């Protein structure tokens, strides 16, 4: 599969803090890719390095075939970028903003623009300054989608938005989906909003990428296990590393298997724990998988401190 974004060993230091540490990732063309991680994990710095808004301390990246440090206006006319703290010309009205953006993009689609104005219910004559947070982000998205960018980069677009605006935002974004060449990179600290939308995820933890995988592969290899120990049975002291978040209360044992194989997964548990009875394996949603990973990384972080 062709990659629209390739990052190799990207690092960025701010003073003593290593915000991003040797991060490599590929975003295949045509995918909707979510960069997930808690606040402060390095998502924004990564995105800014990819779009030449921050220089990497080391490593390199290419975006749409161009070295990220050479990205300029020509590339930006093919990229739609919306961030949490988007700066917009406060004094302009929404109409003026759109009139201002239009001539900068050869691919501007006025019909799509009108349709999104209607769909987002944007007041054209109001100034940006007077818009609510939800309206501002919709105006920012509109001005970044109307030229049908090949790559849409959204940095925490949903934070602080109410459910209705989030929903409108996603619907507007999907307006572009009848185009064949269309890739989205979206960062979020919460999987909730993007769960059904994404097909690939990268999970970032303290500046490093820990998971880079398709959603279907993740859903295939994660299972939530529950079992009961036979009355005189015991749990072995050595358990596989792939078993996360092990918990036991009395004879009940629970854990998350991160290396489940269809067909042999339950047998494998029985061979590790011969005293296991009533072994059940349940599939996990992307949200549950993400939570299990986040909890695992957090406890690892505590051990290191």
């Amino acid at each position, binding site marked *: 599969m062709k990659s629209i974004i390739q990052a190799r060993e990207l690092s960025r230091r701010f003073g003593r803090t290593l915000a991003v540490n040797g991060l490599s990732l590929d975003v295949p063309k045509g995918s909707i890719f979510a960069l997930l991680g808690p606040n402060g994990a390095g998502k924004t710095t990564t995105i800014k390095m990819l779009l030449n808004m921050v220089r990497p301390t080391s490593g390199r990246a290419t975006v749409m075939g161009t070295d990220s440090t050479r990205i300029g206006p020509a590339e930006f006319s093919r990229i739609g970028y919306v961030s949490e703290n988007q700066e917009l010309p406060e004094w302009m009205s929404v109409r003026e903003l759109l009139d201002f953006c239009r001539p900068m993009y050869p691919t501007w689609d006025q019909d799509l623009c009108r349709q999104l104005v209607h769909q987002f219910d944007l007041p054209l004559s109001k100034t940006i300054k007077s818009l609510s947070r939800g309206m501002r982000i919709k105006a920012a998205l509109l001005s970044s989608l109307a030229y049908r960018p090949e790559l849409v980069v959204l940095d925490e677009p949903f934070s602080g938005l109410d459910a209705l605006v989030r929903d409108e935002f996603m619907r507007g974004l999907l307006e572009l989906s009848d185009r064949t060449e269309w890739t989205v990179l979206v960062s979020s600290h919460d999987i909730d909003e993007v769960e*059904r939308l994404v*097909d690939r995820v990268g999970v970032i933890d303290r500046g490093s990428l820990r998971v880079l995988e398709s959603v279907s592969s993740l859903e295939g290899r994660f299972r939530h296990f529950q079992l009961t120990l036979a009355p005189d049975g015991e749990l072995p002291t050595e358990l596989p590393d792939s078993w996360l978040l092990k918990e036991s209360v009395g004879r009940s044992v629970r854990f998350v298997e991160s290396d489940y194989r269809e067909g042999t997964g339950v047998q494998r548990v029985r061979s590790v724990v011969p005293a296991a009875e009533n072994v059940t394996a349940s599939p996990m949603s992307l949200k549950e998988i993400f939570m299990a990973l986040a909890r695992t990384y957090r406890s690892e972080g505590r051990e290191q401190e």
Partner: protein
Amino acid sequence: MLPFTVELKIGTSVYEQLVYAVHRAIVSNQLSPGDRFPSIRTLSQELRINPNTAQKVVTRLADQGLLAVQPGIGTLVAKLPDPSPRERSDLLARQVEQLVVEARRLSLTRAELVRAVKDHWTRLSESSPPKGREQETSTEDHAE
């Protein structure tokens, strides 16, 4: 708005759920042969799902013969294709067995299970029974 009912639940694959929802809509006549089926974009927008997933669903349904993709016109609901002997024996051997096992596990009586099956059969085919299947319904009534 989509012309059929679909409620996506968290935790199971959107793809499977959507394929099933369309099957259900077609057997229950919520979608009839010749009806226009929503575009990939409409499906993905209405359900807020990945367009690639919507594309996979349409491809699968077209492969199964439930949808006919007509270039330039769009996607239409096709006539229910005749089941292959394998599909029919699969349903009768595997899925019916699972249903019986589950019913016995829950200590349902045979009559209760038969009634539940009949109720669901009626509910799905109320508007108009799928053509060529009336015969079977009456045989089933007879058997009880």
